[in-house]
């Protein structure tokens, strides 16, 4: 099968491409400098010509781009997208249901929601970890580390210019509540029709008829979930910083005593070293990822770092909690476990080793790529 792999700036493309090649597929790797613009007709026409000219049969990308779905349909090829971002606005495009698509989602609840709506093109597949990462022999340079966004600037809620006090109070109340509840994403349910009507007087949300998502879904995921993540991450880091020195790797800063702002760390080898050199790596999953295990968790474990993550329902299906990673279910729980595992070095290191081993045994790129391609090939066989 001839595959065209379109790489926009994303994580892990080389791992996926290498594995496709290892499994015998002919892959052409096409880099694009930025996220594709749906209105860029020049690019689209060039891509269509190239597909027809070279006879590609499958188009692959990380995340789902509706424009590519249209192109795939028009050129009668398949489109495989592996989604690692959430929330992903493009998943609400009507193009998701196009029969040429194979879309792999790592959040089981989200996958079930799509299937319940009759969308057959989505499949459930946890993300993968990277194997063969060399152990860094430098030793520990930090006790507690957090790598990730704080959503200080990437949350639309803070950009809202005006909301009436009562409405603002309500939204802040429900975000505070959501912060305390793990394993249940309740923000959408807390937005009644009446409330949404009120919100829409002050916020313009118009995706056009190419997107089927409700205003409720959009507002909950794009505005509230990200703001909740901001509140949660800042609160959690401030709280921990009262007791421990925290190394924060982010494009945003938190000016709090005991928090060392280290800037960003490039994805890949350098990031893995950060995880290895930290005694404890904290993960905090966006609430709109309802049950799934995010990429950060896989990254930490792949590097052999000790992972202390918020509870997510699917963790217990794929890992042994307490033996391969640890979870927290409140800020106090996070604090206590951080203190415990800083003290209990042997136990911590064993958990980190076990976590890495679990990735190598059960969550590798070869396994995931094979599973995806088996599904795609079955689809090919059916249509032939």
């Amino acid at each position, binding site marked *: 099968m001839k595959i065209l792999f379109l790489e926009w700036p994303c994580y892990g493309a080389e791992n996926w491409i290498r594995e496709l090649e290892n499994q015998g597929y002919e892959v052409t790797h096409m880099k694009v400098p930025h996220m594709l613009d749906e209105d860029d007709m020049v690019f689209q026409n060039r891509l269509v010509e190239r597909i027809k000219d070279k006879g590609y049969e499958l188009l692959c990308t990380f995340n789902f781009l509706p424009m590519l779905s249209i192109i795939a349909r028009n050129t009668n090829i398949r489109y495989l997208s592996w989604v690692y971002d959430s929330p992903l606005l493009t998943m609400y495009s009507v193009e998701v249901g196009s029969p040429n698509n194979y879309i792999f989602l790592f959040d089981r609840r989200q996958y079930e929601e799509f299937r319940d709506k009759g969308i057959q093109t989505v499949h459930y597949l946890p993300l993968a970890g990277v194997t063969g990462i060399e152990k860094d022999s430098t030793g520990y340079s930090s006790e507690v580390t957090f790598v990730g966004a704080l959503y200080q600037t990437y949350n639309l809620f803070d950009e809202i210019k005006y909301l*009436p*006090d*009562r*409405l*603002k*109070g*309500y*939204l*802040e*109340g*429900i975000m*505070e*509540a*959501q912060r*305390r*509840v793990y394993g*249940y994403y*309740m923000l959408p*349910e*807390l937005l009644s029709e009446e409330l949404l009507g009120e919100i829409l007087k002050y916020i313009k949300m118009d995706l056009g008829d190419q997107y089927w998502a409700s205003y409720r879904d959009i507002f909950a995921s794009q505005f509230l979930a990200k703001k909740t993540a901001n509140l949660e991450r800042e609160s959690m880091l401030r709280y921990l910083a009262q007791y421990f020195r925290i190394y924060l790797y982010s494009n945003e800063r938190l000016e709090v005593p005991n928090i060392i702002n280290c800037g960003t760390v490039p994805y890949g080898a350098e990031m893995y070293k950060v995880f290895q050199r930290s005694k404890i790596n904290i993960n905090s999953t966006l609430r709109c990822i309802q049950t799934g295990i995010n990429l950060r968790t896989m990254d930490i474990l792949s590097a052999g770092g000790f992972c202390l993550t918020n509870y997510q329902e699917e963790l217990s299906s794929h890992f042994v909690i307490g033996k391969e990673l640890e979870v927290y279910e*409140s800020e106090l729980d996070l604090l206590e476990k951080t203190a415990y595992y800083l003290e209990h070095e042997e136990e911590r290191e064993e958990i980190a080793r076990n976590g890495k081993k679990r990735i190598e045994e059960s969550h590798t790129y070869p396994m995931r790529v094979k599973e995806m391609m088996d599904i795609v090939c079955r689809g090919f066989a059916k249509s032939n």
Partner: protein
Amino acid sequence: MRAVICKVGQRMETAVAEELRREALEVGEFARILKDKDYDVEYIQALSDYIKEYGADMVWSMEYIPVISRACLVEKVPYVAWIIGESWNTLYSSTIQNPWNFVFVAEGHIAERFWKKNPGHIFYLPPGAKADVLSEVPGTVGLCNWNMEYPVYYMKEDCSEYMKGYVRGLIEAQQRVYGYHFLPNLITKKRKTELGKILLEPMRGKDYYQKNLQVRIDDFLCDTITRNEREEAVQIMKDMEIFHEGDGLCTVNVNVASRKCRTGIPYDMLRVMGAGGFVITNYQDKIASSFVIGEEIVVYEDMKELQDKIEYYLEHEEERKQIAIRGRRRVKEDFSLQQRVGDVFYAVTEGLRR
């Protein structure tokens, strides 16, 4: 031995009176209208007179009523107050320290809260129910909960619009989560102080102890959530056009336990189960640990699930009946009223001996 039961409008009164008679006590009933639970002087006088004339050895009520405690203090007779309802406000009365009180609370964490006020006189005691089968009004669904008094608090009109919205947000969120009471952790010091200024509790006697602000806020939020939940549950049942209100068992009986009751079993639910009724209840830790879910009782965790389960069990008669039978057996074994009354006598006797 002679006991007087003060009728204060609680369902368990009749059952307890019968049980006391079964224990070979003579039971008198004092049924005067109570104008004020704290300072009804005429009530105190009338009860004192009755205690003397009847020769009562103890006085009972199914709620803690300060005026009854005052009368018992005057007449030096034990006052057995067994609280099975959802309100414990009267326990803040300074009369709680009365050495003739023997207060039994169906909610463990509440008994703990007040124990220090009168050590050796305040106890945790789950309610008990009789196991006499009652007939069912067929094809109906109803609410177990009865005598619902809430909220006793209200927010001042001049509180900020932001705070009104914020509180509503917290309530709506907690309403969707069963088994994890996150409200106490949610309110910052600043917000607590702000809420404390705008939350009023009209029904407090002059001699009441100060109620902890956190408790006040928590009670207010829980009462509001519980009321909303019950209204929503009733609406669902009414929309199904088979809602039955009033006496008699329904085919499906829905229990919406108060959010304040985290360590107790609701009496109303036990009463229905003891009478052979089939119960669907909201999830609550103590209920889950006292009954086998799915075999003795059925649980729901959101309103959609409640509706689905009502419809399911209306259709699946045999399954429903078996669950009701097992539930009744459990109530007979673990929540017998006779056993509870025996526990009360033991505690009172020991207390008097000390």
